[in-house]
């Protein structure tokens, strides 16, 4: 049994090392605002098509409605997810996953680890899968999903997806009560930093902006722009006259889908979307996600012969 980690970043580093050791490509976070690690094209798009795939990465995630000005012990508008995606899902994925818990200091012989039914569905991505939330001593520490469909396409083969809510998990492992008190780097460092030193102020700033200040007219325009640009990119003929080759721009189009989705979340936090409109907006984002998925499966990475 490895020694207990002493900081938030050590937990991340151990996960990186562990999954690298299991053959995953360790990717960097996607450089756009997303609500969850699933939105990273390394998961959404790469779970489509027949090509094998294995990746792991940290993804900063933003959920504007969850902002609590840094006061709630574990609710944040900006937080980190650790995401693992392997296609096809290996038959011993549960065991490999349990190994990762051990790597970050959870001794399975002292804890109560359970796989509790949780069907996953993302209406905005047109995706669903079956799996569990993994409980450790009654706390949800991960989501474990076998993707069945993404962007309206059946996943063949099936990807196994693991998502760890890093702050919550780390609070538990490190035994602190409030996320802001959690050591970010080693407490023995010359300049020890807590999570609060880094994020308390930004939580306040963003919570205020998300809830009260963000310009909704501008956001509404951004939504329309992203939607139109996504459509325009995909409507562009796939043959590039300059390079004289076929280039389907699935990823640039998908960036616009991500953008639309995040703008929708911001509008939701500003409280300007009514219950009935909500469904309509989700439907519009889903339509974009489906178009992007349709485009991606036409590409080489999506399994088409070059």
């Amino acid at each position, binding site marked *: 049994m490895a020694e207990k980690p002493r900081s938030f970043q050590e937990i991340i580093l151990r996960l990186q090392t562990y999954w690298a050791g299991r053959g995953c490509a360790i990717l960097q976070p996607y450089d756009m605002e997303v609500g969850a690690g699933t939105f990273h094209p390394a998961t959404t798009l790469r779970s489509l098509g027949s090509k094998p795939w294995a990746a792991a990465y940290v993804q900063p995630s933003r959920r504007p409605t969850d902002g609590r000005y840094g006061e709630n012990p574990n609710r944040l508008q900006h937080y980190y997810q650790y995401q693992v995606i392997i296609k096809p*899902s290996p038959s011993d994925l549960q065991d490999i996953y349990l190994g990762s818990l051990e790597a970050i200091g959870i001794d399975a012989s002292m804890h109560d680890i359970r796989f509790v039914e949780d069907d996953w569905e993302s209406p905005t991505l047109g995706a669903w899968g079956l799996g569990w939330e993994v409980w450790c*001593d009654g706390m949800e520490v991960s989501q474990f999903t*076998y993707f069945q469909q993404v962007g309206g396409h059946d996943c063949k083969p099936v990807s196994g997806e693991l998502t760890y809510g890093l702050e919550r998990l780390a609070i538990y492992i490190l035994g602190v009560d409030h996320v802001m008190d959690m050591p970010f780097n080693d407490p023995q460092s010359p300049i020890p930093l807590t999570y609060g030193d880094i994020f308390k102020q930004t939580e306040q700033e963003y919570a205020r902006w998300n809830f009260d200040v963000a310009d909704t007219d501008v956001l509404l325009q951004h939504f329309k722009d992203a939607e139109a640009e996504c459509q325009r990119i995909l409507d562009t003929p796939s043959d590039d006259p300059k390079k004289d080759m076929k280039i389907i721009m699935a990823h640039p189009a998908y960036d616009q889908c991500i953008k639309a989705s995040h703008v929708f979340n911001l509008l939701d936090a500003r409280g300007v979307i009514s219950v009935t409109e909500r469904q309509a907006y989700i439907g519009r984002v889903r339509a974009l996600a489906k178009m992007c998925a349709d485009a991606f499966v036409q590409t080489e990475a999506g399994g088409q012969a070059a």
Partner: protein
Amino acid sequence: MPDLLIELFSEEIPARMQKRASEDLKKLVTDGLVEAGLTYAGAAAFATPRRLTLSVEGLTAESKATLQERRGPALDAKPQAIAGFMRGLDIEAPDSIYRKYVEDIRNGEVITVGEVMLKSIEAKGRQFLFASIENRGRMAADIVAEVLEATIRNFPWPKSMRWGEGTLKWVRPLHSILCILSDEGGAEVVPLDIDGITSGDTTQGHRFMAKGATSVSSFDDYEAKLKRAYVVLRADERAEMIWHDATNQAFAAGLEVVEDRGLLAEVAGLVEWPVVLLGRIDDDFLGLPPEVLQTSMKEHQKFFSVKNPKTGRIERFVTVANMETADNGATILAGNQKVLSARLADAKFFWENDLRVAKAGMEPWLDSLGNVTFHNKLGSQQDRVTRVAALAREIAPDIGADPDLATQAAKVAKADLASEMVYEFPDLQGLMGRYYAEAAELPAEVAEACEEHYSPLGPSDDVPTAPVSVAVALADKIDTLTGFWAIDEKPTGSKDPFALRRAALGVIRLLLSNGKSLELLNIFKHATFFEVTYQSLKKFGSDVEGHNERVRERLYQAFLDDKLESVSVEMRQEIADLADRAKAGFPGEEPSNSKIIEIDEAARTDLLSFFHDRLKVFLKDKGIRHDIIDACIAMPGNDDLTLLVKRAEALAATLATDDGENLIQGFKRANNILSQAEEKDGVEYSYGADLKYAEEPAEKALFAALDAADAKIGPAMEAEDFSTAMTGMAALRGPIDQFFTDVQVNADSQVVRRNRLNLLSRIRKSCLSVADLTKIEGSS
């Protein structure tokens, strides 16, 4: 006689699916075995989070051989007939081959195709095809393999999935199949390969406490080895262990576990090796309402609540782990307590925010109900609250409730729907309403009605008895029913998305169990009226707004008195104007909101007959036949369900007696003779039976009996004393029987005949004044 053991070992099966899945496994496999010609002595199925297990005892070792013989068409029959016969035997070939077979058979050959032997036989001088199909007996192992594979491939999971590169579907990835047939000689694996998963004789124990696979040789061996590997196979045994340990530990602390069978079954499906741990709830949260503690612990954490019997307060919790640990669960319990504290901190946050709003009068909640659509054709929750409040005021006097309190209660009864706590825990609606009404220092009856007005929900729910609660509960349900009838969205077949059947049954039970009379048709009218006026007035605009309440009150009173003409000319003009505008749709409004919603007379009658149908179902369960109810529904005042049921009960009691049953015979006989005579003579014999034309003693006696019965029935009916009326009616049995024995109705004398027919008419009239006995289906 071998025994069969099957285990399908997979990743974690959702708790809620386990029981059903084990039953499905048993049914599919045993049905398949029997269909293939095997028999068995007994079967039992089991489930844990990671396995479905089936044990079949005393299976026959092989199926019996069978021989089937079939005669076919004549050898010279048309090719289509020949081809049809061949295909029926599973012999697929082109017609040319069929022709060749027939040719060979004609030449006296016997042909064998697979298991079918074909030859010719002679009958009536012609040659016919004749087939003998021999099914050799098959070994149990072959049949088991075939049946199990079909079962796995077609298993009826509510939701299933693919994994890896495969196409096989199971609830979660299927890892291994144990399938053995065992007898005194030992066990043998039934060979099976399903998409690369091959069968064997090994199983696995607990995920963490046991390591590696174990081979097993029989069911007993399997169950015993699993137990040594920390797996309790039987769900009921796990539940029993949990309940036993939980109650013991609570008892030792002077506490008791709050019983929750659903939760017990669920938790038993989440563990293979239950370990019960009793934990503490942080003092900070003990002030929360017990229902909030219980709901939060159950919904989020699947904890049992443990209460102090002295105070009734929930003070501890029980969690069930799947692990034995070196520190006896200390780490596990500490973790669970920490998670619970975070959850309850949320609940406390909601509770405190809500209390602030409640104490200030709940205004923001009531306002926000205007933004919640109840149904797009029936307006918002706020519209509904207004209608229900008016209706509750209307109903209150009949229920013996204070109209002001009933109105007040209806106005706040839905307020908690906008509270944070109910948003988080929808199951607490109503209950939180009561807490918040108490916090707002509203009258106790109002607070009580906030909780109780949803009742009764299910057919076995308790029915409220407090008058204010009853009035609001009735108004709430009747508003729903009249509303959906007005927009013609009635339940059809199995579709009842707005639970209207349940609402109607609720009204029936509220009225009957409280013994309250309500003239429903009249109430429906009021429900409609309020809808119209409220909707109209609300949309009418500023000029009416000032005297909104007054206009409404006057309209209402005029309507009640059925004197709409009595309102002033000016007011009538206003109403007409309103109605016109409303019908046209108010400018700038959603059309659906500005429509006048009316429940017209046809819809009201239809709604009443919907109530009557629900009532029949309800009374059938209480042992009252549908024809008895029909006989009473045919009588006036049938919209007063309490009265209707009293009548039906009295009639049922009467019919259960010898006199009653025979009276029906007599009544029917009288009615038949009379109807036939009336039809034949083209007149109605309904008046003027005169004692002076009576000749026989039995005839005279019947006159006297009818006089006596009418004297009893009339006043009794007036007083709604149905059993006295029915007793009076039943007393006619003897005289009627005697009359039919001694007297010939169709006498030679026309005067005597007419008089006798008129006498029969008195029987009919007397009996029909009690109930429509023609509806009674009878014993011949």
